[in-house]
């Protein structure tokens, strides 16, 4: 009897709660009045946010229907997880930055609003100026779902002081002599590391987990994580086995790269070289050490370039999707794109000139911009991405873990990676 009463009480309480939550859920659907837009970003850099806010303020002057545009920085490491959790929780932003590795998921899911019409119709937008190569990843069935606001090539930053102290030729000298190959780059890194007692070459953000950053290495061997159509695993291809064997030897025998579990930050002077995107040049401190930025060394397959991308999309479910798309068109128009170019290499061909980029990248010399940035964007291979990337990525990481032991059997480990991911690729 008592238990029955108690149960009834719980039921009443639950019903009340459900009613309350139901009321709460309906709140933002019936929005009227000026829109408040929110854009999630992964940069909390003050200079970036200042520029974004300036552009937003200018937009609002001519658009009274938009009351507020808020840039909401989410932590870089957990950006996509946080974003999808917000979407799941009914708290989706109106606009969002999207990493290239989650591009296929976002583009194919239907979560984003197609942008072609809005952008093409926007006054003075010059849609045809956008480089087709940079748009590919963000298109599905001929529609553009996100604007590639940053197409940032990978280059090699070099601590020339450390290289010279080890009595090695600098990469610039090697390039001039036509000898900037991976063999020489690794030998230089090993010598500079040994001489200084610090690290040689650091593939930034790899840390023996972020394996997609290794594409900056294996692309030189012509290797791919998976085939173009995304259906066949490429980890056990002969090219990949060669590339990974070289990397393994460079790490554990030659000691050109710091081993697993060792942290070394190039920009703090801990390593002789690092592979990273050019946007990291802002981390260089004036008067810290002598440095240079050079293209990736040539692999057995010759010269190559790798780019990382970031897109900006409008969430289809946003109650203010139309205003958000309109703001996106303003945010990325030729004038604002030129302003954003100081941080994010733009997809606009007319702005991809050494002169334009030099104005806003004071730390880089025109030939660095030409060789690394412009040539990189034009010829670069985008880092690997695939639908269901997070799950694939986790399987590859787990599969590659045995490789990071001194006595690993490279071919066997890579066969193991393919055994793990082939069922996912075939889906």
């Amino acid at each position, binding site marked *: 009897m008592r238990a029955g009463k108690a149960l009834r*009480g*719980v039921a009443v*309480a*639950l019903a009340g*709660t*459900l009613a309350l939550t139901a009321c709460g859920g309906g709140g933002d659907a019936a929005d009227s009045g000026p829109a408040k837009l929110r854009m999630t970003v992964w940069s909390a850099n003050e200079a970036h946010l200042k520029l974004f806010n300036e552009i937003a303020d200018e937009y609002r002057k001519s658009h009274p229907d938009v009351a507020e545009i808020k840039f909401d920085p989410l932590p870089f490491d957990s950006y996509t*997880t946080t974003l*999808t*959790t917000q*979407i*799941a929780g009914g708290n989706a932003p109106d606009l969002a930055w999207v990493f290239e590795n989650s591009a296929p*998921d*976002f583009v194919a*899911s*239907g*979560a984003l609003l197609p942008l072609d019409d809005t952008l093409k119709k926007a006054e003075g937008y010059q849609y045809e100026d956008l480089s087709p190569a940079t748009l590919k990843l963000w298109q599905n069935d001929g529609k553009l779902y996100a604007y590639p606001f940053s197409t940032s090539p990978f280059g090699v930053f070099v601590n020339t002081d450390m290289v010279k102290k080890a009595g090695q030729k600098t990469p610039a000298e090697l390039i001039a002599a036509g000898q900037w190959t991976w063999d020489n780059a690794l030998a230089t890194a090993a010598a500079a590391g040994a001489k200084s007692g610090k690290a040689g070459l650091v593939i930034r953000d790899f840390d*023996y*987990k972020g394996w997609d950053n290794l594409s900056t290495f294996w692309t030189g061997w012509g290797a791919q994580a998976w085939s173009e159509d995304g259906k066949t695993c490429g980890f056990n291809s002969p090219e990949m086995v060669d590339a990974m064997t070289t990397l393994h030897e460079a790490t554990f025998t030659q000691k050109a790269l710091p*081993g*697993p*579990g*060792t*942290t070394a930050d190039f920009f703090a002077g801990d390593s002789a070289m690092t592979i990273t995107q050019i946007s990291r040049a802002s981390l260089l401190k004036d008067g810290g050490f002598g440095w240079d930025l050079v293209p990736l060394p040539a692999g057995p397959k010759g010269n190559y370039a790798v780019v990382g991308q970031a897109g900006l999309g409008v969430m289809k*479910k946003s109650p203010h999707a139309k205003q958000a798309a309109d703001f996106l068109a303003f945010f990325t128009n030729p004038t604002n794109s030129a302003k954003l170019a100081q941080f994010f290499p733009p997809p606009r061909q007319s702005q991809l000139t050494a002169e334009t980029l030099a104005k806003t990248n004071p730390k880089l010399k025109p030939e660095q911009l030409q060789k690394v940035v412009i040539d990189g964007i034009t010829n670069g291979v985008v880092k690997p991405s695939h639908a*269901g990337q*997070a*799950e694939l990525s*986790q399987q590859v*990481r*787990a*599969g590659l*873990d*045995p490789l*990071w032991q001194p006595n690993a059997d490279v071919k066997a480990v890579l066969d193991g990676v393919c055994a793990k991911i082939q069922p996912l690729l075939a889906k």
Partner: protein
Amino acid sequence: MTQTDTRVGPATAGPTPGPARPFWTTRRRDQLTGYLFITPQLLGSAVFVILPLILVVWYSLHEWNVLAGTFDFVGTDNYQALADDPNLGAVLRATGLFSVGLVVFNLGLALLLAVLLNQRLRGTILFRTLFFSPVVVSLVAWTIVWGFLLQDNGGLNSLLDTVGVDGPNWLRGEGTAMVSVIVVQVFKNVGLNMVLFLAALQGVPADLYEAAEVDGASRLRQFWRITVPLISPTILLTSIITVVGSLQVFAQIAVLTQGGPGTSTTVLVYYLYQQAFQFHHFGYGATLSIVLFAIVLALTVLQWQMRKRWVFHES
């Protein structure tokens, strides 16, 4: 408070003879007061515990694609996927290994420390404070610092290097990663169990030991025959808390190993997080959380049942 109410109740209602009894009887008033007291807690539990529990069961019957915004009923598909999941075996093994390692090491060390610190010696207060202090430190901060210490070129290996030992790469070796995570967790929380054991030890009457000594029992025999039986309720309590806590470990794994190397430290909660929040399989994540719930419930019931066998002294 209730007593004054009971007196006021009939007084205000007035002495009304006959069958018409007032609605607010003493009993009803007491009940109302009781319910009012528990309402805040009940509401909190309803919103944050019971409702999510019901929803998790509901979600586990659906395929929920957050990005596409679809929520389709799939019946028992997620449970079928659970049965076919090639990773589940490794995940449960890692979970079991972590729990067993943690419980054995944590309770063993906590009891040892408690016995040592229960002696009347100088400086025991200082050591008690030292061993307890990690309990109040932020878990993530604690784990991050340990992450630095356990790196290949980190503090621990530098220390080993000075005595000529070439330390392993703690967080990267298949065997050492799990041990590292367990040790970090034990050092974090051993103080709490230690304090509970200390309190229990101090409740053991001294005359029992005196009597045992007179009878010629060794210290070890005294420990097994007097101490352990008398503190068995505390052993039960700490083991339940530790087992349940060990199954819910997340932050340490996320910070130190992200489930690697391979899947050697992918425990159930971390796997659940990966499936739901990283791979966007919310339905399957919900299914895994039901598995976790069932395991925790079963272990707790089992331990509670077992108390009849080995808890000798229950008040």
